[in-house]
């Protein structure tokens, strides 16, 4: 049995220097991108091996926002843990809540009703739109166009308003809980959502005019950062990143939860897996989400919004329970290991961004620094979701 050595970042970099045995004639150098860098979307750090402007190697360094959520989960009740999932991928807070709620409901045999599931589906889809709007804006900013950012946020505020009215928070929602949703929907909810849909449809066309159809944008996205389907699967990528590579894997379709089975929608799939496909898939997903909401918004059945009293500390039977949902970024999974108490023995969250991020080590080498920014942005990463 050979000895197992644990290395450090310094050694990793040192190894990378000698990787080609000094064969290259030009001088290669290392730069740190992050932890504070405008286009790493938070505190991600990438150690880049550059040759002039060309990226030779990307070494992501994580953990600058590692908050130890899983450890904390071992001391909190299931109901309490829900609010921590808000803070992982804060742009899909509702979907994250839903994953925990689903796991607990399945384990503790809590039956929800149609109303609860419909409300959950609608708010989760609304937030998916909001998340993609934000991504679109930031993507524009990373390419150097500042205006999309403000346009994206202008429309995102409309969704924030709708959600705030019902939920009471703009970002960290903590709304979907085991056994229902925190509050019933606001009386204006349906009207406002419909207003938003009619408002947003022409705005989406505006997005296309401003960014999608721009020659420079197309030039910078097409063919850049190609991720083949095989690699995407092997690297565990999910969500739009996987679908852009041509694998039509969408949990909403393959194992429908909520009331997705009732709604008709398409799963947009890309062809080449380049930045352009990832861009297109997300824009198309906004359209599909609007379709889903349109079908559901008038058909919210009557019923209670909560079947379990919120104060109850739910006991989960012994065993291992999984659940996963499709967030705006991919599959968010929760594994509850219960020993029969009202706090989990161990809780593991499988976050989509952790896997998606690593595809950058495969796609970025060979491209330029500017392309690296495009590629990272097209992955739509949220750093606390990577680090947990």
């Amino acid at each position, binding site marked *: *049995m*050979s000895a197992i050595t644990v290395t450090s970042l310094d050694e990793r970099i040192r190894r990378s220097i000698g990787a080609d045995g000094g064969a290259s004639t030009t001088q290669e150098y290392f730069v740190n991108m992050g932890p504070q860098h405008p286009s790493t979307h938070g505190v991600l750090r990438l150690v880049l091996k550059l040759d002039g402007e060309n990226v030779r190697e990307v070494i992501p360094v994580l953990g600058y926002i590692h908050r130890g959520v899983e450890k904390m989960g071992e001391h909190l009740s299931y109901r309490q843990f829900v609010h921590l999932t808000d803070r992982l991928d804060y742009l899909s807070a509702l979907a994250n809540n839903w994953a925990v709620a689903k796991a607990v409901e399945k384990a503790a045999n809590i039956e929800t009703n149609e109303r609860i599931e419909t409300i959950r589906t609608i708010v989760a889809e609304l937030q998916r739109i909001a998340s993609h709007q934000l991504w679109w804006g930031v993507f524009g900013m990373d390419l150097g166009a500042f205006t999309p950012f403000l346009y994206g946020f202008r429309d995102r505020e409309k969704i924030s308003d709708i959600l705030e009215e019902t939920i009471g928070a703009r970002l960290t929602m903590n709304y979907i809980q085991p056994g229902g949703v925190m509050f019933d929907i606001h009386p204006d909810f349906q009207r406002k959502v419909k207003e938003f849909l009619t408002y947003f449809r022409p705005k989406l066309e505006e997005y296309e005019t401003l960014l999608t159809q721009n020659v420079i944008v197309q030039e910078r996205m097409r063919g850049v950062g190609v991720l083949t389907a095989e690699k995407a699967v092997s690297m*565990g990528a999910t969500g739009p990143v996987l679908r852009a590579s041509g694998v039509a894997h969408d949990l909403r379709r393959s194992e429908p939860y909520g009331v997705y089975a009732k709604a008709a929608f398409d799963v947009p799939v890309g062809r080449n897996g380049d930045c352009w496909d990832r861009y297109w898939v997300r824009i198309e997903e906004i359209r599909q989400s609007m379709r889903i909401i349109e079908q559901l918004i008038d058909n919210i059945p009557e019923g209670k919004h909560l079947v379990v009293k919120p104060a109850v500390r739910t006991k989960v039977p012994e065993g*291992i329970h999984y659940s996963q949902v499709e967030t705006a970024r991919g599959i968010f999974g929760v594994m509850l290991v219960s020993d029969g108490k009202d706090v989990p023995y161990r809780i593991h969250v499988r976050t989509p961004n952790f896997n998606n991020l*690593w595809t950058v080590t495969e796609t970025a080498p060979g491209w330029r620094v500017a392309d690296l920014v495009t590629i990272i942005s097209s992955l739509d990463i949220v750093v606390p979701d990577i680090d947990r």
Partner: protein
Amino acid sequence: MEANELISTVQSLEPAATLRDKVDRPAMSVPKESVPALMRRLRDEPALSFDMLCAHTAIDWHNENRIELVYQLYSTKHRHYLAVFVSLLRDMPVVTSVSDVWRIAEWQEREVYDMFGVLYRSHPDLRRILLDDDWKGFPLRKDYKDEFMLEAPK
């Protein structure tokens, strides 16, 4: 593939594999010696073709003095799941890496090392991933203590 059919197929590949109960999806316990070979076969067998490692993590069974690794596999072709459990001794948790079977395992295994101290044989780049390189201890172990941590008041 149906759950029991899946399990019998896996058992035909690895006779030592046993059913892991109290899991709400098809789950097998396998001995640690069979890890890389069995995993490769799980991926390559056309009837199974588990081409995606959804998540890889560990559970620290502190009282039983063992650490249990969990490999959650998914097949994008057949759309079925399988959870593979591997028990390791808590004092010397060593297992062979599967990073050459699924690329993502390289980083997921680094995370398990970081949090549980599980050592992976023939891992290309085993080092801490979320914490600092000079961090002492493995935080997700049940007996992890740290002068920084605060107990919640009862």
